[in-house]
């Protein structure tokens, strides 16, 4: 045995060889004597070893799925399934979520199967999604911090205004508006007349929000008017927001704007000649793109830019944008996969330290919220892929291209956010400020970015 293992590449004798070949090929009987037992079957792995195996398997599977090698992907998935679990530790849960997403992606090659299983439609109901969002708010403070920063920004922009119109493009929870009501009611010059126009896909959510807010406004004696607009953001007609000329307008958007990027098909990227090319992003990554779409910085006429232009035309006093700080919009699957793996690993870690393993709320967040996002990023393409997260620098380019200028978030807001983050039990949450924007981080990995913009100003 000693001689066999003498030099570098011993193809035949090591069982580990078989392990590494297994995910990549349907093993042709492998090679020599050693039985192909992967390490996790030979003995009980420690959690970190298991995690590393999972990572390796996931990457193998993603590479295979991206290249269309479905058998290899299937083999890898089988291994992953024996190691991962939605009820295990953070790495196992992440792996389970990504494995499901990869499986869905692989199944795309058989559209009959997909349709028979009603695959694209199987997802959380609106009520479940709303519950998952609420749990995420409760368990992790990111979106609350972002909402507070947004409120502070609106408050500062609307100083001394008597009538304030806030348009929420979706995503903000009612708690954020309740706090805004409190902040406005506490103004030294008294509360303004607040008009809140909220855009949301589902009418029920809007109705509930309306009831809660009008009751609170009544109690605080803030003149308040709530205008619901039932619409998806992609289909929103800016005129339906009924913004009066000359009124003080604030626009907030929490994790919504990236959906607008979905109209840019994978095939066209950002090459400036995009108009209405047909989507054929279903073919995996055998694409004709000559360069990574990430390289395109200059925004072109696309739905997102048109929407931002329309927003700019409303001349808002402030636009606060909260987005995921990650590049999940690359065309090649492997690139997206690696980015997403890191990003959601951080989020799952955060949940791991925020709630016990048996927590129902945590499971809901992982399954109905984060899991759905992962599925969308990995398994969908073209107009179906709505979770097109991009980092703040790209959003900055887009906003500036549409005519907005950056408004730095106030130092007071930063102090507030920092103090809030420190007030929590665990110290993983950090708030980083850079060029006037906030990055809400978990252990040095930025998760969300919050930035504020203003429309035209002439003096």
């Amino acid at each position: 045995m000693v001689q066999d293992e003498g030099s570098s590449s011993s193809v035949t004798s090591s069982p580990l060889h078989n392990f590494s070949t297994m995910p990549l090929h349907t093993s042709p009987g492998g090679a020599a004597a050693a039985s192909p037992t992967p390490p996790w079957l030979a003995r009980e792995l420690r959690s970190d070893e298991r995690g590393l195996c999972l990572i390796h398997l996931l990457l193998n599977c993603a590479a295979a799925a991206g290249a269309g090698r479905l058998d290899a992907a299937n083999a890898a998935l089988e291994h992953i399934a024996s190691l991962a679990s939605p009820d295990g530790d953070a790495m196992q849960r992440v792996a389970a979520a990504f494995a499901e997403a990869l499986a869905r992606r692989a199944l795309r090659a058989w559209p009959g199967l997909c349709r028979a299983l009603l695959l694209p439609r199987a997802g959380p109901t609106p009520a479940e999604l709303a519950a998952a969002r609420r749990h995420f708010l409760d368990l992790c403070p990111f979106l609350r911090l972002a909402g507070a920063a947004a409120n502070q920004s609106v408050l500062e922009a609307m100083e001394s205004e008597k009538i304030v119109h806030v348009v929420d493009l979706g995503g903000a929870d009612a708690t954020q508006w309740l706090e805004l009501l409190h902040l406005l009611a506490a103004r030294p010059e008294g509360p303004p007349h607040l008009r809140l126009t909220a855009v949301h896909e589902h009418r029920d959510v809007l109705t509930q929000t309306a009831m809660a807010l009008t009751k609170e406004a009544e109690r605080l004696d803030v003149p308040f008017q709530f205008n619901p607009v039932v619409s998806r953001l992609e289909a929103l007609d800016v005129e339906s927001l009924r913004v009066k000329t000359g009124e003080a307008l604030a626009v907030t958007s929490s994790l919504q704007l990236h959906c607008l990027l979905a109209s840019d098909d994978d095939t066209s990227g950002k090459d400036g000649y995009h108009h209405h090319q047909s989507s054929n992003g279903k073919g995996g990554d055998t694409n004709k793109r000559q360069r990574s779409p990430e390289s395109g910085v200059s925004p072109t006429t696309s739905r997102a830019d048109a929407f931002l232009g329309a927003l700019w035309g409303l001349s808002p006093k402030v636009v606060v944008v909260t987005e995921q700080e990650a590049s999940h919009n690359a065309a090649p699957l492997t690139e997206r996969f690696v980015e997403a793996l890191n990003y959601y690993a951080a989020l799952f870690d955060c949940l791991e330290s925020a709630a016990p393993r048996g927590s129902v709320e945590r499971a809901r967040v992982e399954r109905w919220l984060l899991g759905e996002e992962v599925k969308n990023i990995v398994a969908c393409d073209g107009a179906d892929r709505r979770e097109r997260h991009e980092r703040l620098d790209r959003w900055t380019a887009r906003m500036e291209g549409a005519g907005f200028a950056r408004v730095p978030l106030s130092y007071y807001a930063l102090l507030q956010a920092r103090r809030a983050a420190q007030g929590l039990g665990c110290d993983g949450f950090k708030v980083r400020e850079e060029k006037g924007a906030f990055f809400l981080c978990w252990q040095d990995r930025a998760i969300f970015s919050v930035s504020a913009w203003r429309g035209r100003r002439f003096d």
Partner: protein
Amino acid sequence: MQPPLPQHQHQQAAAPPPPNSAAPAPKKKRNQPADPDAEVIALSPKTLLATNRFVCEVCNKGFQREQNLQLHRRGHNLPWKLKQKNPKETRRRVYLCPEPTCVHHDPSRALGDLTGIKKHYCRKHGEKKWKCDKCNKRYAVQSDWKAHSKTCGTREYRCDCGTLFSRRDSFITHRAFCDALAQESARMPPIGAGMYGTGGMALGLSGMSASHQLQSFQDQAHSSATTTIGSNPAAQFEHLMQSSTGSPAFRGAQPTSSSSSPFYLGGAEDGHQSQASHTSLLHGNKQAYHGLMQLPEQHQPGSNSLLNLGFFSGGSGGQDARLVFPDQFNGAVGGNVRGDGSEHGNSGANNESVAIFSGNLMGNQMASGAGFSSSLYNSSETVAPPQMSATALLHKAAQMGATMSSGNVNSLLRGLGNGGGTLNGRPAGAGGFMAGESSSLRSTSQAENESQFRDLMNSLAASGSGAGTAFSGGFPGMDDSKLSTRDFLGVGGGVMLSMGGAAGLPLRHGAAGIGMGSLDPEMK
């Protein structure tokens, strides 16, 4: 990308035809959509206030609109022409207020309607020439005056102090600050405090009484706030109260701030109208604070919007956690109030804690939502030593990918590390991948993959002891026999030798680091 916005300044003479024709569109929308290409027009005050700009040359009759003048001219058998506004050529016009201090003087806040800007100017910057005879209210715009006189005296609101209001909003605003109301609610606290005291820690306070107390509590807060806190309005005080009631864990985490909260609530609880010395407030009402703390937990569903702030939403999942923290909380509050009470005896601390609280509203909410649960669960959960977070595992995989020879998956592994490590927004995921790609060109042989994987497993073993202090728990057991070590690697001793050959230095160091003396002979 800023469109050009020409500004037309029109100086007013006697009655020149106005630049903007007032021909009405078939059905004019009141709130027209904002148009970035709109023409911004700044008229002088004289133009705005002029009523009859179009004058008939024959009889000197004045008209507000060009069209009306033209129709009048027909009567004089004068040549007349009705000008049509061309919908294609006409640009949307927006108007500026001539008053420089006005908000609408800025083009970004220009108003869209000529009549609107006229009325705005008169109302805000004009003289009030019309007066209602019933109630003595004055108006600058005739239409406002007419509208008011129709409703004047028809509907009345009467406050308890006797003041009459015709408008609902002014009535409500008055009521919030009215002294009479304050005096009445001054009779409430003894009842409230008593209930709180006896209610204590139990969650058994009845719904009705609790919400009633809460209501009266807030009314007291209103009144006490007006008398004591001076500049801070009542609403802010309520806001503070709500923030403080919503965050038990926050209090646990930051004793200094928390000491000011019982301080505050205590003040309101006592219902003292003149709270010159705040020290007195600290002594009572620890119990009251507890009692109040219990309320939010039981009364979530819609009883009071205070409680609907969504902290404890999420249903039954958090129930056990809620039940737990009264205990923590009791000790915390008791300790805090006792400990720090004496220090907050002055209004200076008052204002400071106000600031802290308004700053901490978010913190409280988040603390209640996530912090307490995390601190709670972190302390109670027993974590097995070799428990790496998913992010740490990814970093480690990337490191191992970096030390191992290149390959397809390795480039991805390296990309992992790079992707995870981007802290400042560079799209380094792509960069890492690219770097991996280039290095993967070096060799793509099957053998590379395998040796990578072997290295992976081995370096797992190696770094397990060498790098991770957390892993030390796992290892000692392995030291017991040579056999068990081999089994651990799953391949037998032969691999250890190949490790020496193939993987090179790091693993050897790792193996040495394992400290398994039994292996060394084989290594040779």
